[in-house]
C-alpha cells in the first residue's frame, strides 16, 4: 500500500483537518459555517471512496457483471448531505438573526457586547 494508493484517505483527512481548523480559528460566523461544511464533506468522502472499486460496475445481477461497487454508502451519504444542508441553512438563518440583534457577526465583538451587557 502506497501513499498514492491511499489518495482517497489523504484527501479525506486533509478536508477534515482543514474544516476543523477553520471552525476553530476563524471568528467570523459565516466562515465558521464554511469550515463546518468542509468538515462535513470529508465524511462524505470517507464513506464514498472505499465503496468504489476499480473496474466496478453498478450492482446488477446478470451476465458480464462480476465486480460491482457498493451502492449503500451513496444512499447513506445522500442522507448525510441532506442533514448537512439543513444544518448550514439553519446556521445561516441564526447568523442573520445575530446580525439583526447585535449588528455584527464577528465573535470577538459579540463576546464584547455580551460582556458589556453583564
Amino acid at each position, binding site marked *: 500500500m502506497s501513499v498514492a494508493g491511499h489518495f482517497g484517505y489523504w484527501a479525506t483527512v486533509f478536508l*477534515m483537518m482543514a474544516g476543523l481548523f477553520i471552525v476553530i480559528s476563524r471568528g467570523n460566523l459565516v466562515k465558521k459555517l464554511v469550515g*463546518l461544511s468542509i468538515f462535513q464533506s470529508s465524511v462524505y468522502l470517507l464513506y464514498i471512496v*472505499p465503496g468504489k472499486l476499480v473496474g466496478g460496475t453498478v450492482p446488477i445481477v446478470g451476465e458480464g457483471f462480476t465486480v460491482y461497487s457498493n451502492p449503500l454508502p451513496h444512499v447513506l451519504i445522500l442522507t448525510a448531505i441532506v*442533514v448537512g444542508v439543513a444544518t448550514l441553512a439553519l446556521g445561516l438563518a441564526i*447568523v442573520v438573526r445575530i446580525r439583526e440583534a*447585535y449588528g455584527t457577526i464577528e465573535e470577538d465583538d459579540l463576546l464584547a457586547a*455580551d460582556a458589556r451587557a453583564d
Partner: protein
Amino acid sequence: MLAEHFPALLVVTPLVAAPLIVVVRSARAGWAMALAACLAAVLMAAQLLARVAASGPVSYAIGSWPPPWGIEYRVDAASALVALLVSAIGTASVVYARRSAAAEIGGERLYLFYALMMLCLAGLLGMVVTGDAFNLFVFLEISSLSTYVLVALGRDRRALTASFQYLILGTVGATFYVMGVGILYLATGTLNLADLAVRLPQAADPRAATVAIAFITAGLGLKLAMFPLHAWLPGAYAHAPSAVSAFLAGTATKVAIYALARIWFSVYGADALLRDIPVAPVLAALSVAAAFIASGAAIVQDDLKRMLAYSSVGQVGYITLGLSLATEPGVAAAIAHVVNHGVTKSALFMLAGAMALRLGGTRFSDLAGVGRTMPVITFAFVIGGLSLIGVPGTAGFVTKWALAGAAIRAGQPVFAAVVLLSSLLAVAYIWRFVECAYFREPPAGAPAPGEAPASMTGTALALTAAVVAMGLHGAPVLGAAGRAAAALMGGAR
C-alpha cells in the same frame, strides 16, 4: 395487532404530529396535539417496558426488511426505560409550556414551538429505539436541529449566540460520531448494532475498532456534555425558554449517554473495553474532573439557570463515572442516575422558570427574598436541590449511594470518596440559593406574594413529588436500571 408496531409508532406519532401542528397553525390546537402525542408516547413506552420485562427484547423490522439488511428497531429493558423517561419529561414539559412558552415566546408563531418540541421528541425517541448505527445519527441530527431552534427562541439575544455555539459544537460532535460509524462500517460491512457486536471481533484490523471507539466517544461526549466538551451547555440551558431548558435537561444529554452506553457495552462489550482499549480510564478521569470543576463553577455563577446548567455537567460526571467502571452495578447506577437526575433537573428548571416568569429574571439579585414572595416554589426548589446534593429521602441519594457502592465493589473506593466529596460542592451552590431566597430582603418594588400559574406550578410540583417518591422508595428505579444494565451488557450479543 397495533401493539406489535409500538416500537415504530413511538417515533412516528410525534414525527407526524409536528407537520400536522404546522398545518393547523393554532397555538391552542398545537398544544393539545403535542400533549396527545406525548401521552401516546408515554403509554407506548410503558407498555413496551412491561412487555420487555415479561418476555425479553422486542425486535421490529422497518418495512419488513429483516435485520441486518433492513433497519431494525430494537427495544430492550434499557431502551424502554429511557424512552419512558424521555416521553414522560416531554409530557410534563408540554403541559408546563402552555403558560410558560406563551409568556416567553408568545406571538402568532407560537404553534411552531410545539411542532419543534415534537420533532425533538421524535428524534430523541428514535435514537433510543433504533438498532442501527447510521439511523441513530439521523435521529441525533433530527433532535439536534430542532434543539438549536428551540434554544434560539429564548427572549434574550444571547440565546442566539448560545444556539449558534451549540450548532457548531453539536454538528462537530455528530460528525465525529458518523466518522466512527463509517470506520466501523468499513471494517465490518454492517451497520446493525447487534450484527456489529458479532462481526467486530472478527474484523481484519483491530486498529479500526480502536479508532472508531475514539471518534464515537468524542462525538457523543460532545452531545452528552462530557467535562471538557461541555462549553455549549451552560449558555444553551441558561438562555433557552424555561420549558425548553426543562425538557432538554431531562432528555437530550441523557439520550446521548444511553447511545454511548449502547455502543460501549452492547457493541464493543465491557471485556474488550477494559482489555484492549484504554477508553474507560480516560472517561473516569474526565468524570472526576467534571464532578469537581463543573460543580465548583456552579458555585460562582450569578444566574440560577446557569448554576443549574453547570450542576448538570457535574451530575453527568457521576453518570459517566458509573459507565467507566464497566461493571454491571456501575452501569446500573449510571442508568438509575440518568432517570433520577433527569427528573430532578427538569423539576428544578421548571421551578426556576416559574420564578423567572414572576420576577423577570433568574439572576441572584432578582431572587432576593423569593422565599417570601413565592414560598411554595422556593420550598420545592430546595427539595430538588437536596436531591442534587444527595440528601437521604431524595432521588439523588438513592443513586449516589448505588454509585458509591458500585465503585467500592469494583475495587475503586477512591471513586466513592469522589462522589462524597464533590457532593459537598453541591451543598455550597444550593446554600447560595437558600441564603438568597430566605435571608435577604425582597428588593423595593418586588411583586406582591403569589405563585406562578397553576399549570406551571402543578407540573413542577408533580416532578418534585416524584423526586421525593423515588427517594423514599428507590427500588422500582433501581430494579429497572439493573435490568437495563443487564440488557446493555449482554443484550445485543
